């Protein structure tokens, strides 16, 4: 799966990242933290400039995980259920 390295780096270095970038959108490629940004758009544009059109991770540095996303009609297979 793409971004495995980046996700592992984020998880392993979370405390260090929080110490310097808490609340910011951090940009990670491989095992390299490229910096923190105010918005995800700024982080994305910086990633494109630095790494080109390649996978890189943008994640808000925060202790609490984001809430789960749900799309029940698709995952339950009832997207086009008819009465």
């Amino acid at each position: 799966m793409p971004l495995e390295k980046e996700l592992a780096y984020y998880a392993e270095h979370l405390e260090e990242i929080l110490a310097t970038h808490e609340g910011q959108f951090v940009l990670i490629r491989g095992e390299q933290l490229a910096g923190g940004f105010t918005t995800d758009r700024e982080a994305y544009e910086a990633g494109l400039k630095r790494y080109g059109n390649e996978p890189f991770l943008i994640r808000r540095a925060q202790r609490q995980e984001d809430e789960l996303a749900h799309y029940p009609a698709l995952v339950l297979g009832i997207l086009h259920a008819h009465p």
Partner: protein
Amino acid sequence: MLGAGPLLQVQVEVPQAPAAYLSGQGQPIPGPQSGWALIDTGATRTCVDKDVLTKLGVKPTGTVKTGTAAGQVEQLLYPAKLNFPVAGFQIEFGSVIAVDLRGQTIAGANVVVLVGRDVLARCLLVYNGSAGMFSLAM
């Protein structure tokens, strides 16, 4: 509308930033991918078919945990631009959830987008079931 649900024609396009990057590199910008967008009030975030995103050549920028009947699953997030030509508006997303919408076909066209509540939070949606119509305005 009772059978198919609230559908909009949609074109999924390469967002402005990667399009500018590709253009600057002298690379071709993949053309828009057309299909149906289904308004899904049950979806927390907007989802786009992963094959469509692959065809656009955009790369993932994150992941999100999603709740499924089998437990939590990590899904990739991609930047995307949705153009609704009939409705007359476009939305650039920092990230949409890549999902498998293969086989979701209505009137010969694929459903390629589930419009979630992240979009609806900025819209007025009126679902007039008795008249068999709906309206969506930003």
